[in-house]
């Protein structure tokens, strides 16, 4: 039994534990215990992975295991990780951990909330560990559907509309995806050879005909791109995030949107390099648009969550943008951006949730001078803001710089010009971040009732500090993680060239 399967097993046990938990106390105990365990497992995985690599294990994927599942279609339950997936696993574990604390006082039906949250995390973990298209896709959808109830039941605002829209749009994505995957499967092997769902084998066979790649690449890329909030399929994100409860926004923006980026190059680009080369320019334009577009529309929003959602559109657009540059550095940047954006947007949503929980409004025009009332939260918010506008020493900077430098190494003029366009986003980001910080935290207290509000409680502090520490750690010592990623990207990049 491969230890990666624990990533799926532990949450299942966690669900069982939650099911038998009776009161809030026990629920919290179970949640904290298991999410900590999960975090430990993730860290262990990273260390083990690094050790293996250090030991000179040059396999593309480590800790592989594969058991036949559906014999007639040659579907396996196959797991394995490379640098990218371990990074993502770590990210997920961290955010789930922080999310548990962020939803410490969730009401009502707290048990169900954690059950659904755990189901969601099962999907995410499973997606990141599996290297079989079918299981990957299955976990992908497992991760999607709990969103509906999580938003619908525990959400706020026009939650029904948002939840339905989010679910349907993402399902639309996975509909395209299913066709794409089936198409890949039926062209996965040369004539006579057995068809396979295993990503590595498909890549090894490299048998997908070029004309089919033209058809399948857009399907898969858009399918995943919808979850990656690619223009013009991003509109689920603002409403969805605005209505979602704190922990869900954290997990969704922090991790779930990364499924999109991860899938885009693990499936779309990795398996169909030819089409990736040929068609990248189309999606480059789209993603380039969403980078700038998202930033611009964030400038005029007044709802904190909308601002953050649009900035997520912009940042995740940057991820896809970098992936499409198809060179090692840019892709490394993309993965680092996933990581950093995951952490800092989770931090953002956590803080917004905490502030909202106190002021009961997310409209920046109705708030002000929070720095005097809740200094801790405000300082954290400033840090998150600085991270997202790319302050050196925080994770955002290294990710963005890697992307920009990497993208600018592209030999094609068109790509370089687009890189410069994308660069402009850092200025716009500064504009809307500082706008929020100025309106929300500085200045005089807008609403006198806010004066008697309290600062963060210990669990909120814990949740925020965890994320800040990670953001700063990556920002200050990016070397090891960037090596970790770029080493495992070599194989993919080789296929592209």
């Amino acid at each position, binding site marked *: 039994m491969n230890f990666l399967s624990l990533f799926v097993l532990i949450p299942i046990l966690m669900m069982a534990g939650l099911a038998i938990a009776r009161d809030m106390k026990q629920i919290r105990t179970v949640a904290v215990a298991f999410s900590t365990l999960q975090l430990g497992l993730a860290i262990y995985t990273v260390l083990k992975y690094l050790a293996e690599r250090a030991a000179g294990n040059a396999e593309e994927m480590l800790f592989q295991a594969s058991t036949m599942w559906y014999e007639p279609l040659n579907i396996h339950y196959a797991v394995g990780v490379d640098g990218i997936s371990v990074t993502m696993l770590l990210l997920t574990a961290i955010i789930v951990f922080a999310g548990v604390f962020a939803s410490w006082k969730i009401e009502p039906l707290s048990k169900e909330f954690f059950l659904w949250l755990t189901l969601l995390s099962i999907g995410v973990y499973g997606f990141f560990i599996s290297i079989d298209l079918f299981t990957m896709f299955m976990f992908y959808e497992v991760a999607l559907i709990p969103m509906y109830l999580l938003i619908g039941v525990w959400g706020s605002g026009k939650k029904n509309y948002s939840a339905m*829209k989010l679910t*349907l*749009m993402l399902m639309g994505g996975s509909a395209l995806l299913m066709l794409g995957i089936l198409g890949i499967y039926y062209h996965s092997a040369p004539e006579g050879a057995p068809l396979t769902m295993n990503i590595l084998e498909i890549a090894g066979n490299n048998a997908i005909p070029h004309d089919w790649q033209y058809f399948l690449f857009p399907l898969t890329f858009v399918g995943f791109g919808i979850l990656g909030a690619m*223009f*013009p399929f*991003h*509109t*689920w994100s603002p*409403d969805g995030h605005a209505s979602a409860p704190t922990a869900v926004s954290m997990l969704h923006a922090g991790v779930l949107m990364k499924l999109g980026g991860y899938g885009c190059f693990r499936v779309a680009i990795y398996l169909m390099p030819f089409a990736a080369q040929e068609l990248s320019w189309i999606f480059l334009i789209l993603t380039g648009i969403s980078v700038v*577009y998202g930033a*611009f*529309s964030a*400038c*005029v*929003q007044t709802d904190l969550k909308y601002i953050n959602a649009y900035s997520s559109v912009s940042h995740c657009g940057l991820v896809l943008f970098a992936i499409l540059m198809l060179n*090692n*550095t840019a892709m490394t940047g993309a993965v680092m951006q996933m990581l950093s954006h995951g952490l800092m947007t989770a931090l953002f949503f956590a803080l917004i949730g905490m502030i909202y929980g106190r002021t009961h409004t997310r409209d920046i025009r109705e708030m002000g*001078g929070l*720095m*005097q009332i809740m200094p801790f939260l405000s300082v954290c918010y400033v840090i998150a803001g*600085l991270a997202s*506008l*790319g*302050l*050196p*020493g925080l994770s955002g*900077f*290294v990710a963005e*710089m*890697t992307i*920009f*430098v*990497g993208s*600018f*190494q592209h030999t094609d003029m068109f790509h*370089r010009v687009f*890189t*410069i366009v994308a*660069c*402009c986003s*850092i*200025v716009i980001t*500064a*504009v809307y971040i*500082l*706008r929020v910080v*100025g309106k929300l*935290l*500085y*200045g*005089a207290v807008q609403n006198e009732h806010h004066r008697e509000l309290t600062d963060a409680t210990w669990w909120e502090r814990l949740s925020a500090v965890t994320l800040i520490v990670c953001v700063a750690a990556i920002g200050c010592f*990016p*070397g090891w993680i*960037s*090596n970790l990623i770029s080493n495992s990207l070599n194989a993919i990049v080789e296929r592209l060239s």
Partner: protein
Amino acid sequence: MEYTVFILLLPLAMFLLLGLLDSKLKPRVAGILGTLGMTVCTALAYFTAYQFFTQPRNAEGVIPSVTPYNYEWLRFTEHLHIDLGIYLDPISVMMLVVITTVSLMVHIYSLGYMHGEKGFQRYYAFLSLFSMSMLGLVVATNIFQMYIFWELVGVSSYLLIGFYYTKPAAIAASKKAFIVTRFADLGFLIGILILSFFTKTFDFATLTATPTAIITETAGATFLGCSVASWALALIFMGGAGKSAMFPLHIWLPDAMEGPTPVSALIHAATMVVAGVYLVARLFPVYCVTPEVLELITTVGAITALYAAIVACVQTDIKRVLAFSTISQIAFMIVALGVANDTDLHEGLGYMASMFHLFTHAMFKALLFLGAGAIIHAVHSNEMSEMGGLRKYMPITHITFLIACLAIAGIPPFSGFFSKDEILTAVMHKSTFWGIWMTVVAGLTAFYMFRLYFRIFWWKNTDCSHHTPHEAPLTMTLPLIFLALVTCVAGFIPFGELVSVNGQPYHIHLDWSVATTSIIVAVCAISLAAWLYLKENKKPTAMADATRTLHTAAYRRFYIDEIYLFVTHKIIFKCICAPIAWFDRHIIDGTMDMFANVTQWVSARIKGLQSGYIQSYVWILLMGTLLIAAITICCLL
């Protein structure tokens, strides 16, 4: 000289310590700690300078530059990687001295000035952060490290300007400062990208060692008619212009005066704002291969110098006056760099001069600001109208301020005279037009500085009825005195021996023709100022009325800020952001909703199919069958 790394680590440690313990510490303790840290830092810097400048020169008489420490921080490609390290050469060491000195003075000064302020600890934390970033910037071994610390100084300046975060003006100012510089930094970043794409390196040593590499690499590559190399360097200069508040990116600096005065002294007079000059100086050999960019630099500098000088003449807020004088003085340095050239020592005079002026200016401008701080501290106002005749109440401030004014006006034997003279010589040598231009600016400088001086210390003999201004405490006067002394002697430092364009010693010899002219001009300007402002009278207002339009325009800074406001709010926000947001909500999102609505609509329209009558069901069934048959037959035939 590995210990130099502590020059960076110490302030960083201070920042973390003070920042994390924030209110856990007593204000006093925090202040003392910060100051001590900076003292040690300064000592180290001085020791480094001593060690560096006293080391044996090599064959062609150049002081060899040292890289005591360099560690790969982040690797992009096999060529491109960000290193964090320390690169010691004459100018960086000179900057180390300047920064630590001024920073230390400000630390001490703030003990008195900021006494009892809310968030005293935070203030010192930010000061340490700034010092760390600034020091990191000057010792950068590669352009990307410089960019990193460049951003960090930007942020710490943002935090310090917005120190009084309940004051709307301060918030606005800090936001403006950050965004404008950020915009400039975008140029810097793109410049770096282009440069590194062609030269395949970030490293200063490599870049400056083979400056022509970029030309050979980018051979033929042009964009909009200019060679890519020029683009890259111009964009990089844009970054510098932003930080150094060159026209038209200067708008943030006057507003930045909303911050605490010591901060203005440290960041917006002595150190951060000269980062641009330093950047150009750092890449000077590379700039020399693209003369057109140097032309650009000269022009920008000259225009800024004149513009700022004119505006400074009519401002009534003393800190604003100083701010504009800063802009104009930095413009001097920029111009000096622009006219210089690295072919030989004499051609490179401007380079040396600008560095020299940077050094002296840092001292006396810091002195001016700290003096102004003392005055504001006493009068509780920035407005000239509130002041006048302060000389008898605060003698020390008065004397030191006068020295500084003389220095900046270019009166021998004060430091300003020597450095400015070198600059004028260099400019004159390059082109007479710019030479005269800059001399005029020098005259204006003398005028507005003494206007300021007389308005503050003479003008009217108020024996202030409501409250008597009193001399500042020792913690504040001590730095004033120290800086004043430096200002007096700095001119006699054999600067050219240490810093010159190609590192060989250069013996400063005054070009008396230039010197005398400038002195005469200055004296005239000063006496004019004295004639106008020594005693309270109506002449100034009369003159103002005489040149009403010009005066107002100058007072409103020639409406540059208004233009910016118009562009940002009216055009970018109203005409780009808002429409995009609308488009997103109504068009893109609307399309998505439309799918749903259309489905609903269709399903509502076709419900009649399910009429509930057996016969219609049967009818449809039959027709369906026959239709299928018919269509299929048609397809077959």
